[in-house]
């Protein structure tokens, strides 16, 4: 038994180092990292692209927008990703970090892929909600202006929705939503909480004078049980809403579309969260989604140009494309044509 050990060790080491050496020589598939919101769309394109049979199916990791951009900005070379999914535009600080690692801003191609609506929904067994962004702010913020003395802030006293607005049902405020690490939360705070907060003129004027105080006042969500951080898994929120018809949930539009037999979306500022309203930007809580491509890898990793061509094609991103079936809200045909020609002109 002991005599066989050296032989086994030699076989083992040759096996391991052999495959490492093989892997380092090159990469013949595209690597994508980034946002979990964009993940379902990029994976769908990747699958179609792989099935066409000319190139290998790209590998798509779900790391979150921030984590993905960090990996993407790691540098140029086969060990770094080629494309990053982002549920928000890349930040200046991130571009600077990128440039330091050798990925210059001019070598990063931004491609907008469409819109995503964030919905406030409840079980279809409960009452339909008609909310305004001001209602949502008054219901969910940690501090709100005192109704008796509007220039002072008090901890949020509202326990039921009809205390916020007489027209709303007398149900307890209980909203399930994403935690602060999520891109959906960032977008929700920016588009709903800050907008609702700015309906108070003195807070709105604060934005120019003392922006950090403005952010503190508007961005903080209540922590007394009215707003429940339900984790990154939107399916979990959907299942909790089915079990509790009085609760509301905050998540991406695609989950509302897939679960339309169990859920109903609340109108925000009088606009229902339906496909057409999000596509026309009438629905106030919709945001653009992006992918970023590293130009230095085009031509080194096979298939990047063809992959992008598939992504921006009509059959994928168009009004009746397969991404729309997956819940992406497409841009207008005119915008798509512009995005397509500029993307394909920059990636050669």
């Amino acid at each position, binding site marked *: 038994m002991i005599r066989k050990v050296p032989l086994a060790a030699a076989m083992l080491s040759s096996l391991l180092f052999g495959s490492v050496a093989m892997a380092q020589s090159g990469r013949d598939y595209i690597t994508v990292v980034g946002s979990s919101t964009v993940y379902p769309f990029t994976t769908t394109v990747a699958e179609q692209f792989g099935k066409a049979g000319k190139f290998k199916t790209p590998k*798509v990791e779900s790391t979150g927008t921030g984590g993905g951009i960090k990996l993407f900005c790691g540098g140029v070379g086969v060990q770094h990703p080629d494309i990053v999914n982002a549920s928000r535009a890349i930040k200046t600080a991130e571009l600077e970090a990128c440039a330091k690692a050798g990925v210059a801003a001019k070598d990063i191609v931004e491609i907008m892929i469409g819109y995503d609506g964030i919905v406030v929904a409840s079980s279809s067994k409960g009452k339909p909600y008609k909310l305004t962004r001001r209602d949502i702010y008054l219901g969910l913020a940690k501090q709100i202006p005192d109704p008796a003395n509007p220039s002072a802030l008090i901890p949020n006293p509202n326990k039921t929705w009809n205390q916020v607005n007489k027209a709303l049902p007398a149900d307890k405020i209980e909203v399930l939503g994403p935690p602060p690490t999520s891109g959906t939360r960032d977008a929700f705070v920016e588009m709903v909480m800050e907008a609702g907060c700015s309906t108070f003129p003195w807070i709105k004027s604060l934005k120019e004078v003392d922006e950090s105080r403005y952010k503190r006042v508007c961005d903080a969500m209540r922590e007394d049980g009215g707003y429940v951080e339900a984790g990154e898994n939107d399916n979990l929120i959907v299942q909790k809403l089915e079990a509790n018809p009085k609760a509301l949930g905050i998540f991406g539009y695609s989950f509302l579309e897939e679960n339309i037999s169990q859920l109903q979306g609340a109108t925000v500022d009088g606009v229902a969260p339906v496909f057409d309203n999000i596509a026309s930007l009438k629905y106030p809580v919709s945001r653009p989604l992006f992918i970023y491509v590293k130009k230095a890898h085009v031509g080194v990793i096979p298939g990047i140009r063809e992959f992008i061509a598939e992504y921006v094609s009509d059959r994928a991103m168009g009004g009746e494309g397969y991404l729309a079936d997956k819940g992406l809200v497409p841009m207008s045909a005119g915008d798509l044509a512009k995005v397509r020609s500029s993307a394909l002109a920059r990636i050669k």
Partner: protein
Amino acid sequence: MSSRTAADTRLLVEKSLRRRAWAERRFRAYGLGAVLLGVVFVFFLFASIISKGYTAFLQARVTLDIFYDPAAIDPEGTRQAETLAMANYSALVRAALREKFPEIEGNARRRALYALVSSSAAFELQHRVQADPSLLGQRQRLSFLAAANVDQLLKGKIDRRLPEANRVLTDQQIACADKLVNDGQLKLRFNSAFFTGGDSREPEQAGVWGAVVGSMYTLAVTLLLSFPIGVAAAIYLEEFAPRNRWTDLIEVNINNLAAVPSIVFGLLGLAMFLNFFGMPRSAPLVGGFVLTLLTLPTIIIASRAALKAVPPSIREAAFGMGASRLQMVGHHVLPLAMPGILTGTIIGMARALGETAPLLMIGMVAFIVNVPRSLADPATVLPVQIYLWADSSERAFLERTSAAIIVLLAFLIVMNAAAVILRNRFERRW
């Protein structure tokens, strides 16, 4: 005097007898209650997973009469590989559906009709034609995957009584599906794609085989590395190393490592294997390295305990016969300790099989369609596949998530059963 104390003692004992008997009965009841509670939880876990997941082992398939129309695929009749690869095969599926439902007209209504069949049908036809171009011009009756929503309808998971706007299928689509069912062209069959395919964004095409292969590669690397290293470390520490401050320090550290949260090993793997050694991301090889770090302490501790359990008389007898220390270990102690070592190894492996957190850091939480062919190919593992499906918006992924959990549980049960069998067959008591 002495008789009085004896009577007192007896009285005292008789008084306490009832109390002690009660205490014992209570303790037994608590113990039984704890076991029952555990059994109830296990029962609920299995019942909920199996009741949600068993439907995924069946899949709706549509049978259609396909006409390999040469005018649609190869109008010039060149039969060149390039033409056959670029042709629009979904047109054949659409034509077959139009033939079946000639009454459906209009673009939107036809699109709704086409959505009944999975998009994989076109690729299946493409593979058939590319393999055998002489099929062109012929007719064939073939069975394709139905779309996930049709599958859910057949499984009774779509409520027909809801208003049309609140359903993922329209009235027209349901009527077409019903007609196909009546004509025997739409049936639930065994879902072989689930066990042979890789991941997919379309629930009806998604399978666990890619994740199973990824798990097997990862575990193979883990086993090949952690077993020899762990056993060698245990033998050295137990049989050869002097007892001093340094070996004590090593022992304390190994015990601490066994309790470190697994994500920490992922961060270590990212820093060491990926950033320093430049190994590929998402590879089962690196996953195996990281899980080796995770399982080594478990294997070392279990192996040391097994070696310790071999009685010293065996060692003394071997020495008495003139054996060297290495011979004593190799010929006598190690074979006797092997059942315990193997049990510890298998339990360590079972833990490694269920890990996701450390793999997140090294990029194995990813969408990978192709079944991995080597240790350096990108791969994912079973628990990661479960996590990714649980996070998908399509409702048909719910049952697939549970089905993947059933597959993972089956793996774990097989591994734990192997541990029990090895222990029972080879264990020796002194």
